[in-house]
């Protein structure tokens, strides 16, 4: 619905019996929360009901809208229902249920069917829209779309249009501050607010979890007198919201960006539930929005309130003092290596340091070689991984995939503030250079599975040992929790279970939480250390399958995909067998761009990074900044 239609609807509802509607069906939406505040939709709903109208809400949660409806009906999840859809070109798509409904909900199709007195089940409805032939139908279900059902393209001719006229384009708005409302990068418009995974996944740019904040540039903050991590009031006319401020390097001046989807009052026990006195997470900025400028508000007044607000940020980045900033600037070129095209063309191995060439003779002792040493298991594989920084966008899908695959707990805002988030692979985001126009560098860091791992040496009970295939194995049931391994890891990829983060799942009534866990991975108890295992459960599954079939022990490249690799949208992460000459990971390791992070510590990581090649157009301002930072 566009803005004017929404306004019209709200007005109609307010008319009650005199208006055009008697019943309002709200299917899988939450307008009482996420519509722009000026529509005052809650008032419209209540007015509608008060005047005899009936509001029926079908939704996954008893959310804000359900609280203002006469009827709330539980909806079956998309994974539990039959559904169909239409692609952009008219192709019919199919949706199948994965599992019987956990809570006996109904799908949207069934709801509409019931409303229109259509007695068919959702499955029958969807079947009716597909091809009649059974075989074709099975193929359609398998592929997810009905082949050949695209609409026929229309012949159109283009009409010449006058050149667009742009008004005065100034870098900063003339009056007040511009506020841009964006859907939260993880919880969207709020529909996924109650998912702890998403609340705790740090925003790729701000690294903020569990809250939204008003992002603004340093210059704007200075001119307004706003300090980082303090509350500000954004007001336009009679409407205002109070939100914490986040000083963001590289943000445009005169503008504030804030995410939607937070501050919900009826999302659930994770994100806020007034009925059970659970505080809302984050701040609801919908009251500030107007229906005709739902994603951008101009002329907003920003008033600093001075009250400090704790923001759960996983990287204390620029809040660091001068010494920290200097330290960071000094070492960044060594950690996240980048080069221009010219550099790469001149010397493809520009990212390598002397340490990258250290071989077996770099040590004072005879290095252990499982391939020849009789006391150790003979390895059939040599696992390794490579992450290409050139194609990594910093989206953090790897972080969530890893959390899903490996039963990584959600720890909550207080624990993130303390620095105890549990993600095994994290997306490090650095700013380099001028804070007003910085270069952003992203680097996913997981366990490097070092061949000479510093963590293994110091564990008193040998809870972390090296497999002959190259994996650094963390043995949970041997760990007594001295945490020396975490201290000695220079990459700080080890996570410690400071509390029993899974105790909620053991409470009566929370059984269903256990279903979220991957049955192939141990759920760690309090007091043990954990870290990336190169998805050892997937490696073992492939190994067992191969052995069952008594095939040649070589597992074909691509059979084993780690969760992070599987979910990476750009394919930056490759994992495989370095013994396999044709494998992707072997090629990546032999790529001249590859380098080991902190190679000079002689840890010999099996997880190499491929240096990023930046290629800005010479005419763009970024190119000049690029020069300054890379060679500064």
């Amino acid at each position: 619905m566009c803005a004017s239609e929404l306004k019209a609807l709200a007005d109609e509802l307010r008319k009650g019996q005199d208006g055009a509607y008697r019943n309002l069906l709200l299917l899988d939406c939450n307008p009482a929360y996420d519509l722009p505040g000026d529509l005052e939709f809650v008032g419209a709903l209540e007015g509608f009901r008060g005047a005899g109208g009936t509001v029926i809400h079908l939704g996954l949660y008893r959310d804000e809208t359900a609280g203002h409806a006469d009827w709330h009906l539980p909806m079956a999840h998309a994974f539990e229902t039959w559904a169909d859809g239409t692609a952009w070109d008219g192709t019919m798509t199919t949706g199948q249920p994965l599992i019987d409904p956990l809570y006996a909900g109904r799908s949207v199709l069934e709801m509409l069917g019931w409303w229109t007195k259509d007695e068919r089940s959702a499955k029958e409805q969807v079947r009716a829209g597909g091809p009649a032939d059974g075989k074709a139908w099975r193929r359609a279900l398998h592929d997810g779309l009905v082949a050949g059902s695209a609409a026929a393209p229309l012949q159109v001719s283009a009409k010449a249009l006058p050149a667009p006229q742009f008004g005065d384009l100034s870098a900063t708005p003339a009056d007040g501050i511009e506020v841009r409302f964006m859907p939260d990068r993880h919880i969207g418009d709020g529909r996924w607010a109650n998912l702890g995974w998403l609340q705790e996944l740090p925003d790729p740019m701000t690294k903020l979890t569990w809250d939204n904040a008003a992002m603004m540039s340093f210059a704007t903050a200075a001119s307004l007198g706003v300090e980082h991590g303090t509350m500000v009031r954004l007001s336009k006319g009679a409407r205002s919201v109070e939100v914490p401020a986040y000083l963001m390097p590289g943000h445009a001046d005169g503008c504030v960006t804030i995410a939607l989807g937070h501050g919900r009052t009826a999302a659930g026990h994770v994100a806020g539930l007034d009925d059970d006195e659970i505080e809302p997470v984050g701040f609801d900025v919908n009251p500030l929005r107007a229906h005709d400028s739902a994603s951008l508000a101009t002329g907003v007044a920003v008033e600093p309130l001075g009250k400090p607000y704790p923001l759960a940020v996983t990287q204390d980045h620029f809040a660091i003092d001068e010494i920290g900033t200097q330290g960071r600037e000094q070492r960044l070129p060594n950690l996240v290596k980048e080069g221009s095209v010219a550099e790469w063309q001149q010397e493809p191995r520009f990212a390598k340091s002397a340490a990258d060439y250290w071989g077996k003779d770099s040590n004072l002792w005879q290095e252990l070689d499982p391939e020849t040493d009789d006391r150790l298991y003979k390895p059939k594989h040599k696992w390794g991984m490579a992450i290409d920084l050139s194609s990594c966008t910093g989206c953090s899908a790897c972080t969530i995939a890893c959390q899903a695959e490996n039963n990584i707990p959600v720890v909550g805002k207080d624990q993130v503030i303390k620095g105890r988030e549990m993600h095994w692979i994290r997306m490090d985001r650095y700013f380099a250079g001028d804070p007003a126009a910085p270069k952003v560098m992203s680097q996913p860091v997981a366990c490097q599975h070092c061949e000479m791992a510093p963590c293994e040496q110091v564990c008193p009970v040998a809870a972390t040992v090296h497999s002959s295939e190259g994996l650094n194995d963390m043995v949970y049931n041997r760990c007594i929790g001295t945490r020396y391994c975490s201290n000695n890891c220079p990459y700080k990829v080890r996570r410690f279970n400071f509390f029993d983060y899974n105790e909620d799942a053991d409470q009566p009534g929370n059984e269903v939480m256990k279903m979220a866990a991957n049955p192939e991975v141990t759920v760690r108890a309090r007091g043990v250390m954990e870290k990336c295992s190169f998805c050892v459960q997937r490696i073992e599954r492939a190994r067992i399958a191969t052995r069952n079939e008594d095939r040649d022990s070589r597992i074909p490249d691509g059979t084993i995909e780690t969760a992070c690799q599987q979910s990476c949208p750009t394919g930056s992460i490759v994992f495989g067998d370095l013994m396999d000459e044709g494998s992707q990971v072997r090629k990546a390791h032999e790529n001249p761009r590859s380098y080991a992070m902190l190679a000079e510590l002689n840890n010999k990581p099996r997880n190499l990074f491929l240096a990023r090649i930046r290629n800005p157009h010479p005419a763009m301002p970024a190119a000049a900044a690029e020069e300054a930072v890379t060679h500064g």
Partner: protein
Amino acid sequence: MADSFTVPAAATQDERVFPAPLVAGTNDFASVTETVCSIVEAPRAPKAWYVIFGIAVALLGVLGAMIVYLVSTGVGVWGNNQPVAWGWPIVNFVFWVGIGHAGTLISAVLFLFRQGWRTGINRFSEAMTIFAVICAGMFPAIHVGRIWVIWWVFPIPNQMSMWPNFRSPLLWDVFAVSTYFSVSLLFWYMGLVPDLATIRDRAKTKARRFWYGLFSLGWTGSNRQWHRYERAYLILAALATPLVLSVHSVVSFDFATSQLPGWHTTIFPPYFVAGAIFSGFAMVLTLAIPARKMFGLEDLITMRHIENMCKIIMATGMMVGYAYAMEFFMAWYSGNTYEGFAFVNRAFGPYWWAYWIMVSCNVISPQIFWSKKARTNLTLVFIMSIFVNIGMWFERFVITVTSLNRDFLPSSWHYFSPTWVDVLTLLGSFGLFFTLFMLFCRWLPQVAISEVKNVMPQAHPHHHPSEGKEG
């Protein structure tokens, strides 16, 4: 009769010409015995003892409560986080172990150097060592995530066929600290036996005669027994000397064998040992100065003892200061960016206040002891000894926390703050220490009676024995 001569208790003469006597006042063997044993035999302890003991037991209760809370809830009740996985408990561990070393130094090393003045304070400090090591040993035990399986650090055959990893410095710690505790305990007990026999022989009540008799093993002071006893004492002293050096070196290996900038330096073993002696002597002073007043031991723990301890504090304090300077120099000279940053960060980063407390308490304040007036001003010495221990606690804090809080990757930099549980656990450990110490003061001879008698002038025969037949 034994000759005795009167010397004012507070006099300290020019030691190069005529060292002050080790036992001041008009004392002979009997009065020494009486001075020390009367404390144990007194029907009621001095009032101050009850006050201190009461506070100590209360703090001990707090410690117990904190440990129960910790074990039932998780290590997260402390301020530890990623990357600062070691916080106050490890700082407290190194602090207490360091304090313990002074006792062995006084007992063993000063014995080997034939320093007679050790006899006034060695019983005291050996007891302090044992109680400090108990407090120290508690911390690694409770700081692990799963205390109920901590026995896996010992090479005990188990159903998993697993053995501990002997290459780990933490395991070296286990062996070193347990050996240190056992040897110190044996050494202390061995020294106690003749004195317990003394109390047994003076005992008026049956209970006292039974218990002191039991623990004095039937000692009668036979010279043939003294002969072997002295041999064993010498051997234990000779063993304890490298032991005390090795134990704190092994504790320093917890840091030195890691890769972290600021930890990974070879100066740590001697630096830690010097620091341990530094803090240990300070603690001996903190305990001895009030105790000698409270229990009337001024003639046995004289100003000469106090002054010597102040001099040792100054010497080791300067060694520690040298180590600080060396670390800075090496960080700069090495050209290693991480190492250099680590030290600039210590002095000027978010924990600069801890660093400067450390420097002022450890390096600057002990310089006051160049002045004899300062060394003999008991109030000043007492206050200084507390400063020294505060400084040494902060030293361990600076070492542990600043290197962890900002190490290689800036993305993992994070601030550490302690929680109330951290604070109460530290206070509680003082409660444990003082409870044990007060019990020691009340029920055991605080001064090594037989050893003090041995250094009195009356103990040295003028008669030189002639060689004769064996008997």
